[in-house]
């Protein structure tokens, strides 16, 4: 009696919140699901074919029905078919999948950048406005959000099933991912890369709000200074301005309009001054010396926390005359041609000018 009631509750519970896939709460989610269900379909067909073949043959040709086997060598024709058809299907999946992959990891130029640092065992998000959050992320709908991720210790992985996006937070290197939330609500945030004892407690909430609510939230949870302002203070306290200033005899490049510029390094390589570059230039300057400047920039490794680096990067970005427009990110240009889009034409002279000094 008792046990049956338990089973009954169990059944009810199952039927009530039974789902085959998570809610689609981002722009990419439907595109992902399209591919996913296409592959499910193909798999089901493939599986049915195999099962049908096996069962029907074992019925038709069981020893009772078919006492003597007919020896058959094989058939190149048939084998060719079941080599080529799967190959074709797999290649379709490959191309389709690659398109989605590049879409997920290629933020649009005008995305709003939120910095996220992962550490054992919590996520810390830094909004440009200076709002901090632990194990939660508030975002508006209808706006492209770019996450710049880094880990302070081990590999973590920032996963939002409802958005179908996931990106590893790697120690010592920025990674990026972007999404555009569509439906307000609260969704799961998981760390999916095993990261030690409390891995399974490194979870949180993604709170998607309408733009209005989001504004309200921003005001309510502001911490006074914006991220860029913190950066400015840090910039001063580290006396970076001693070299990086506007004076003609400045020993370091003037940082105005550096962000998003195309720089030529001392070793002749060209590079795009994105968040990753700026971080590297602060921590490992000797590999990121700009052409035409003496190699005197000291390293700040071990002197600034990752949050501090975020603040400095944001500050340097804010030195651009109109930086919101020019936000571009690491490794995003799919094709060299599309450079133009990522580094607006207006930027190039500035960049060159700075290098030439």
């Amino acid at each position, binding site marked *: 009696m008792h046990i049956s009631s338990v089973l009954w509750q169990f059944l009810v519970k199952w039927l009530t919140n039974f789902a*085959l896939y998570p809610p689609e709460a981002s722009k990419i989610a439907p595109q992902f699901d399209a591919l996913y269900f296409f592959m499910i379909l193909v*798999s089901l067909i493939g599986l049915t074919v195999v099962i049908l073949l096996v069962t029907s043959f074992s019925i038709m040709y069981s*020893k009772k029905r078919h006492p003597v086997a007919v020896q*058959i060598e094989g058939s190149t024709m*048939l084998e060719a078919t*079941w080599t080529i058809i799967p190959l074709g299907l797999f290649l379709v999946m490959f191309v389709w999948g690659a398109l989605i992959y590049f879409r997920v990891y290629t933020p649009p130029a005008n995305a709003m950048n939120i910095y996220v640092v992962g550490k054992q065992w919590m996520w810390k998000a830094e909004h440009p406005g200076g709002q901090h959050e632990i194990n939660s992320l508030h975002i508006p709908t209808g706006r492209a959000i770019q996450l710049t991720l880094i880990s302070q*210790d*081990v590999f973590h992985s920032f996963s939002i*099933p409802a958005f179908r996006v996931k990106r590893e937070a790697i120690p010592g290197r920025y990674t990026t991912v972007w999404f555009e939330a569509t439906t307000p609500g609260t969704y799961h945030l998981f760390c999916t890369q095993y990261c030690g004892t409390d891995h399974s407690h490194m979870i949180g909430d993604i709170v998607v709000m309408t733009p209005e609510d989001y504004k309200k939230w921003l005001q309510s949870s502001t911490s006074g200074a914006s991220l860029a302002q913190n950066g400015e203070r840090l910039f001063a306290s580290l006396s970076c301005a001693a070299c990086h200033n506007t004076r003609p005899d400045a020993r370091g490049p003037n940082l105005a309009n550096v962000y998003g510029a195309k720089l030529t390094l001392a070793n002749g390589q060209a590079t795009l001054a994105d968040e990753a570059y700026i971080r590297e230039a602060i921590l490992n300057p000797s590999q990121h010396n700009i052409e035409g400047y003496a190699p005197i920039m000291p390293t700040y490794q071990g002197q600034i926390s990752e949050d501090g680096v975020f603040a400095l990067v944001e500050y340097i970005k804010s030195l651009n005359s109109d930086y919101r427009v020019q936000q571009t990110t690491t490794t995003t240009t799919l094709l060299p041609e599309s450079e133009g889009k990522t580094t607006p034409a207006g930027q190039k002279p500035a960049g060159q000018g700075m290098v030439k000094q």
Partner: protein
Amino acid sequence: MSSSTIVSLPDQSTARVPKMNFISKENGLLSWLLTGDHKRIAILYLVSITFFFFIGGALAGLIRLELLTPQSDLMATDTYNKVFTMHGIIMIFFFLVPSVPATLGNFFIPMMIGAKDLALPKINLLSWYLYIAAGILALYSMMTGGVDTGWTFTTPLSTHYLNTNVVSTGLAIFIAGFSSIFTGLNFIVTIHKMRCPGMTWFRMPLFVWAHYAASILMVLGTPVVAIALVLVVLERVAGIGVFDPTKGGDPLLFQHLFWFYSHPAVYIMILPGMGVISETISTFSRKRVFGYTAVAFSSVAIAVFGFFVWAHHMFIMGISNYSMLVFSLLTMLVAVPSAIKIFNWAFTLYKGSITFETPMLYTFGFMGLFTIGGLTGVFLGTSGTDIHLTETYFIVAHFHFVMVGGMLMAFLAGIHFWWPKMTGRMYPEKISQFAAVVTFIGFNFTFFPQFILGTLGMPRRYASYPPEFQILNVFSTAGATILGVGYLLPLLYLTWSLKYGEIAGENPWQATGLEWQTQSPPLTENFPAIPIMDHEAYDYEWLEGQKEKVASVG
């Protein structure tokens, strides 16, 4: 003989297990511990991997119990981490990798190619001792505090952020690696140099081809994981910084080296299983394997392509998008040979004369589950879907379908198929058929829900999880108990059959392999005289001919 079976046993009243065989040759523990006979070493391996399989299985049971409830209440999170780590390490390095090659391969490759023994018997014995040493070391580190890196030893977690027995476990795997290198090396040499007269490459059973391919992977892949683990140990002991981002090292480099072995390792595990399937499906449908050459070459193709795809384990870990393209494309190519095999096996049944003894049931199980496992692998090889599905229970379900649903089914198929040859006695048919069905049902119950869990986003390696995932987890745990029963049964009735099983005689299945054309259990040097291979593999007319000859003589 009833028309629903091909089993033909000698008259039980008169039949005896031959007095002179490789088991009765010498007695005493030493005669086993110092033996050079590939068959005895195979038995040693069989016993030891069974032992490790049940340890690993027990750990799996603990995992499933913990996941019965959303909270981590059965054990603390760090205990849970240790449990799944040891489950992975034991099952992969101490069960799956040596399972079929070191037992069935060791026993039957020399017999199938008509050799007296493997080319290097001493090396063969050495590899078993290495395996045992490694196993003891692994168990030791499990007893003394365990290790919680996950079987992937991801740096810098394993090198800087854990204070468990990473070093001793690393060494254990290092040693186990050399054990499997020596096995593979031995197989390659044997297959090249020890084939009997007339045994051309294309007269070899597909079981041998599959092992040849797997051995190539063992020999060329394993050293790389060995050096990777050496580096991890050095990094821990001396902090030399090669994987340490704060010193300018790149943690991803470890994963490149690790997966360079550990992806091919998947094929090391599955290829021998495929070999078994080729044998059973041919025997129980009385037919030559459909498209022998295609199946043979698809094994080799898997082995070769297996080396080009490792970075598909790292798509979201910050490898360059462009090498992602390359690796993803190659992954699609490596999926094809498996498809070829499945269809060739299916068409082997066509116009056959099929019977349904236990090995055949396991074979059907393999074909179904491996197809699912393989197809879901494509989901993970496709970069776009990989983003959402990787590091979730989807991937857990995927590799359990391939490894447990595929490899373990094949292993059991093989054990039942060759049991009469190894022991001279039949296993009890009815109960073993029952066990096969139980295993199949239990398996699907356990792992199918995990595909849904994964799609819903439940991350792997979580000791506690959001409550809405509970129901499917309960299903999974329930299934695991059934599966457990399915695995315990063979242990019991096979042991029973050692004494009470029916006398099998030379060739109970009417199979064509050379190993069936001699007494069971075989003589120490396998054949009274070196056989001469004068027919194709799986040539059932030839077998009929032989029978008539015997009849006419008698």
